[in-house]
């Protein structure tokens, strides 16, 4: 299982020094990671080696159903993004992307909190350079803002990490294995502090209101392949951590904090969607829709019913696919028009029917149209929201209406209406671009009609969490 982390990491190093055809090498390593990922998913045993004995740190990796879904999402998205990025990114980006993949996979595999933390923080360095080296004119500022938010969150998480060490060494010998930490009997006050620290860190990552402000700036300035890796892979670590660590390790404190978290999630849902409607910059728009989606995911997690959690896990996968498609399509569009401003585009559906069609499909998937993937997960989350409290459900449902508005209105402004008279004719998607989008769109349809396998992968992970929480109540 260590191999799954080592392959992309080695790939990053090799890509960085390879003088000839580095992008091809990077792509090769991404494919190799995909293969290794698929193989380890079914065959590899868990890893558990002592790493730093005095601190109780183990190099421990394992993959449960939830981990498998996240690994699958990651290893699939990276090569797709690489193909999309080929024209306007140099080899530095490819090397960083592989490094990012390695650390992201490590967070999803980690069975030791210390390892999780190290990977959690280490993802930021590649992400920082990916934002800073390619993108809009203000990318350095955006990269700095991104990094400050994330590192701030990370340091707060460090507080929780140390708290666990103190509790664990008081109880005997220190150990950071998540399975050992789950056995600890942590006092109520300590548990609440640890929860608050972890939740802040994951809320910054995910992101949630009110620590979301880095998101739109980053997606606006970064290139779209970078945004895909950030929003669709990296941000998932936030919600992944909420489930794995908040619910898994401090369930009582999680139940204690649920009302506040639910309110924050609701604000994120509505506020993100309303802001998205008002955006003129297409990339900001997509970034803010994610704020709304992460609100829904968080709501599903903390409503803490079986449907809610399964829905949230599914949502993480589906949002990853749908938003990746949205970003990439937007990127193709922007590379043709040279601007991300919606108001400077109109009537493009005649010149670029394929582009318009894929945008509509991906957009409607984002908006939760039945038959496309996100619908199933959204319904499950909403059911759990109504279970939690009818008012919460009512507010959360507005997300669907608002999502329809921002997707369709953006479509209307960009693609319908009289065509622009342009000196430069706008060409439709070429074969490479279609090739990038086909797997994503197929996945959207497939997961929409056949969500069964995803649900059955998530079920066994969710059941014990829900049991613990309901026992606590």
């Amino acid at each position, binding site marked *: 299982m260590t191999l799954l982390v080592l392959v992309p990491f080695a790939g990053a190093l090799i890509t960085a020094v390879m003088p000839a055809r580095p992008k091809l090498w990077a792509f090769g390593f991404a494919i190799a990671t995909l293969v290794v990922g698929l193989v380890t998913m079914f065959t590899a045993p868990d890893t558990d080696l*002592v*790493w*730093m*004995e*005095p*601190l109780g740190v183990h190099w421990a990796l394992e993959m449960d159903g939830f981990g498998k879904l996240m690994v699958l999402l990651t290893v699939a998205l990276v090569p797709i993004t690489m193909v999309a990025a080929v024209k306007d990114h140099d080899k530095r980006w490819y090397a960083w992307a592989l490094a990012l993949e390695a650390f992201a996979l490590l967070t999803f595999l980690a069975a030791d909190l210390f390892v999780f*933390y*190290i*990977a959690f*923080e*280490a993802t*930021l*360095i590649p992400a*920082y*350079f990916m934002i*800073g*080296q390619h993108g809009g004119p203000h*990318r*350095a500022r955006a*990269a*700095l803002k991104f*990094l*400050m938010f994330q*590192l*701030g969150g990370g*340091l*707060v998480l*460090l*507080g929780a*990490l*140390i*708290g666990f*060490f*103190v509790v664990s*060494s008081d109880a005997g010998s*220190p150990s950071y294995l998540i399975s050992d930490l789950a056995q600890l009997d942590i006092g109520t006050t300590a548990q609440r502090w640890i929860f608050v620290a972890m939740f802040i860190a994951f809320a910054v990552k995910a992101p949630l209101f009110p620590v979301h402000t880095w998101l739109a700036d980053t997606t606006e300035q970064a290139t779209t392949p970078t945004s895909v890796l950030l929003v669709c892979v990296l941000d998932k670590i936030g919600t992944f951590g909420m489930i794995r660590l908040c619910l898994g390790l401090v369930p009582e404190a999680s139940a204690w904090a649920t009302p506040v978290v639910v309110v924050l999630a609701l604000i994120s849902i509505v506020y993100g969607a309303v802001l998205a409607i008002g955006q003129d910059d297409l990339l900001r728009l997509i970034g803010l829709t994610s704020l709304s989606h992460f609100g829904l995911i968080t709501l599903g997690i903390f409503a803490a019913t079986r449907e809610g959690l399964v829905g949230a896990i599914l949502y993480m996968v589906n949002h990853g696919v749908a938003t990746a498609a949205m970003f990439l399509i937007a990127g193709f569009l922007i590379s043709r028009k040279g601007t991300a401003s919606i108001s400077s585009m109109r009537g493009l559906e005649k010149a670029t029917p394929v582009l318009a069609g894929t945008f509509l499909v991906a957009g409607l998937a984002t908006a939760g149209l039945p038959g496309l993937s996100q619908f199933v997960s959204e319904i499950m989350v909403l059911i759990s929201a109504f279970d939690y409290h009818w008012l919460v459900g009512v507010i959360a449902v507005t997300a669907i209406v608002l999502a329809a508005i921002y997707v369709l209105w953006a479509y209307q402004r960009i693609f319908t209406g009289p065509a622009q008279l342009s000196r430069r004719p706008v060409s439709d998607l070429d074969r490479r671009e279609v090739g990038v989008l086909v797997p994503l769109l197929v996945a959207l349809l497939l997961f929409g009609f056949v969500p069964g396998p995803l649900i059955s992968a998530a079920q066994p992970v969710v059941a014990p969490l829900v049991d613990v929480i309901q026992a606590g109540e």
Partner: protein
Amino acid sequence: MFESPGISYATLWPVLLVLAVACAGVVVEAFAPRAARFNTQVSLALAGLVAALAGTVAVGAGSALGASTGEGALVIDGPGVFSQGLVLLVSLGGVALFAERRLDNGVSAFAGQAAALPGTSAERTASQRGLEHTEVYPLMMFAVGGMMLFCISGDLLMLFVALEVLSLPLYLLTGLARRRRLLSQEAALKYFLLGAFSSGIFLYGLALVYGFAGSMSLADIGEVAAEEGSGPLLLLGIGLMAVGLLFKTGAVPFHSWTPDVYQGAPTPVTAWMSAATKIAAFAAMLRLFYVAFGTEGDIWRPAIGVVAVLTMLLGASFAIVQTDVKRMLGYSAVAHTGFLLTGLLGVQTDAFGSTQAVLFYLTAYGFATLGAFAIVSLVRGPNGEVGSLDRWAGLGRTNPWVAATFAVFLLSMAGLPLTAGFIGKWGVFAAALGAGQWPVVVVAIGSSIIAIFFYVRVIMLMFFTDPREDVATVSTPSYATTVVIALSALATVVLGVIPGPVLSLLVDAGGFIG
């Protein structure tokens, strides 16, 4: 009848060797011809340090560990010997940086003739003749000897003597910069005056503590304090002695010399001093507070806690507004003192406790600061080193390797995972939190966030900003400096990825003994 104290030469010879090499250096200065001095001094210093390091390792691995010698004046225990070894390691790097002559047209970073007034014809003559001060090596060796004694001092007098032996050469070395000499001399004077005051205060406190306990030995003081409880004499003594040590480590409110001295001193001196002094001072401080004042923890912990909070906040905030890289690193050193003091708040345990945390932090910080200042000495313009951060903009494009290495050191100081600084930070925070000092840890986390901002801003400047017309250039150094930088970077990364062996070594070394 007076009995002469028994001295265990078998465990003390590394210290004595360093001091002997220092004396030999003075003799060389007097008798060797000018042309031969540089090579003689450098090889003497290097050989002495390597032999002393080997000796220290042998002592650390030997059976004599845990004994005191010289009637308890010197204590050979695990943490003490570890910090001695650390001092020797960074001093080896220091000698290599001192000996760098390739950066500035074949002369070292030290003034040609320190006695020549700046701007006079005497100075020009000295420069033209290519004079240089090879006295810096014996001076440095005296300081190293003092630091090694400071790490293992078991009584108050030895503590004071060691403090003076290590301080006086530092004052001199600070004033010896070849370029911007007025700045350097001002820094030296400031350092000397404030240092002299703080030594006086330290001595006063020492006398009061002796008055309380009737003994110079730290272990005896600890016993008396445990039996009789504290008294006004002891409290006052603790306070005054703490002032002396806090001054050396650059803690607020005794920090004001730090940025000036870091900026004014020749960069090789800054590199070595920032690492070595901090190691020695914290080793002595740990021993003093745990062995002698261990029972008075309820009294000094809150006070040190307040100092730590102020030091972290002030150091980190002031570093943000600095425009000179050496001053910025100076204020960052202040902030690091605060983090180290946070670690001091913990307790000694058999497992991973305060001592281990602080010593690991010192290891991580020592290598990072040595390497960072070594790189600062490479970044130059027509008039010597370029301190102004504006002119560092775009360095990542013109010199990616140098900028990347500098980034590694900065990230380690910022405490990012997979660098040594992260484990160090984790350790000191864990030690303090384990002792229930959560308010200080909260402030420490807040200060870390502030500190990250200025470290990352430099990285942003180097990599994401377009180079200006007068962008600084990177001179090619000799092998010695390259090796120092490479090894420091390697240590920073290796200690971050596999800290296990060093951590185990520290745990095995145990705590300070009386």
